[in-house]
């Protein structure tokens, strides 16, 4: 067993400074507290002027294991000279490659008199991949795009690609793409709230969503086929046996009809407890993991 795992931590601290020329009046301070297997880090931003300093950013995620490896990224400037500041951290892990990530986005004004505005913060699990490449962030002047590998509804599928694209022009909106292939969209539809899925769903699927949705849904794929008689439609079957904390006595068998609209846009067209006509055959979810480079993410229309 590695030495660090046996060490309960809480015997050391650290302090690191970051400064970026694009934000000349801001100093980012990263204090760290030694915990088991690593270091839990907070991030504080201080704005300096002739009168002294003021703490304008306080970013720390409470957890029992800690989040460290803090990284900062600054977007290009928008038309008003403002930039987005991304603060990201990864969970402290002793051995597992299943990790957690935290991210926070602040809008930084072009002048030092205007304090940063917190736009978004969140936590997400991810699998770090074979080459520590299971999570990437793409930051644009008005957007954050997160691409990651995370667990599937079907435990027999080791991981799937997720994409979360947030636009900050008018509030905070999750925009397309929300998935890169049809069965990943089906999983996204099951595990994300109706407020996110409504614009990507036929109205008559709402009652099914209310019945099937939870942050955690587990089951297994029963069929994934491109419908021969319905152009651009995929029939995706699941046996679902856990919805949230509700372990079902009998799995619910459902079939989701996903329409591929192109450009990584999808729509949930129908949900049924029986197979759709025009979608014969049997198939399994692809074991390929579509993956966009950071440059491709930034170039998304």
């Amino acid at each position, binding site marked *: 067993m*590695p030495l*660090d795992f046996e060490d*309960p*931590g*809480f*015997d*050391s*601290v*650290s*302090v*690191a*400074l970051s*400064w970026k020329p694009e934000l*000349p*009046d*801001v*100093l980012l301070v990263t*204090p*760290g*507290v*030694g*915990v*088991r*297997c690593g270091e*839990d880090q907070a991030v*504080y931003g*201080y704005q*300096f002027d*002739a009168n*002294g*300093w003021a703490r304008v950013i306080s970013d*720390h995620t*409470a*957890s*029992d*294991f*800690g989040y460290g*490896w803090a990284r900062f990224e600054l977007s290009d400037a928008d038309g008003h000279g403002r930039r987005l500041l991304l603060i990201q951290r990864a969970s*402290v*892990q002793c*051995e597992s*490659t299943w990790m957690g990530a935290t991210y926070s986005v602040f809008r930084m004004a072009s002048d030092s008199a205007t304090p940063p505005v917190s736009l978004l913060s969140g936590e997400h699990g991810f699998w*770090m*991949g074979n080459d*520590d*490449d299971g999570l990437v962030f793409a930051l644009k002047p008005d957007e954050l795009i997160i691409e990651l*590998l995370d667990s599937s509804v079907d435990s027999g599928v*080791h*991981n799937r*690609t997720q994409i979360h694209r947030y636009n900050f022009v008018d509030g905070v909106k999750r925009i397309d793409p929300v998935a890169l292939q049809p069965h990943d969209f089906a999983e996204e539809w099951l595990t994300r709230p109706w407020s996110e899925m409504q614009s990507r769903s036929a109205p008559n699927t709402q009652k099914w969503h209310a019945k099937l949705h939870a942050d955690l849904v587990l089951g297994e794929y029963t069929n994934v086929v491109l419908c021969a008689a319905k152009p651009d439609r995929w029939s995706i079957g699941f046996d679902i046996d856990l919805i949230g904390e509700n372990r079902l006595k009998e799995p619910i068998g459902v079939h989701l009809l996903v329409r591929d609209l*192109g*450009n990584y846009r999808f729509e949930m067209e129908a949900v049924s407890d029986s197979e759709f006509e025009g979608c014969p055959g049997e198939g399994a979810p692809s074991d*390929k*993991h*579509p*993956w*966009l480079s950071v440059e*491709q993410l930034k170039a*998304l*229309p």
Partner: protein
Amino acid sequence: MRRAIAFLLAAGTVFGQDAALARLKQELKTARDQEISAERKAQAEKEKTGVWPEAEQGLSAARIARVHTALLSWIELQLPMGRSAAAIKSSDWEAAIHSQLAAAGIAEKSRRLRQTRRKCRSISKIPVLIPSASH
């Protein structure tokens, strides 16, 4: 008279910094003791019941938060007034902070920065084309 006031202010600041550093050390020690004690208790419970007790959830987070609060107080007592952010970054402020922590015996040890990361099964990750309006 002015010199006396300046001396008193400086002495007060140093005293405040020392007190904050002492509090930080104490918070670390308390957190470590509690963590060790909680782990022993949990281990005993697990051996008895075969299940890791859930009662401990959130307690480590509270311990971490308390140390962060003490650390933040100490840092902010040392942040210079009347200097620019760039000047502080390019100065020896960061090194001085580390020296103080090292002298107090609580500086980060480099071994912590080496995180064990186990590799596991491979996957097939494929590049895809950027969507275009004509897709």
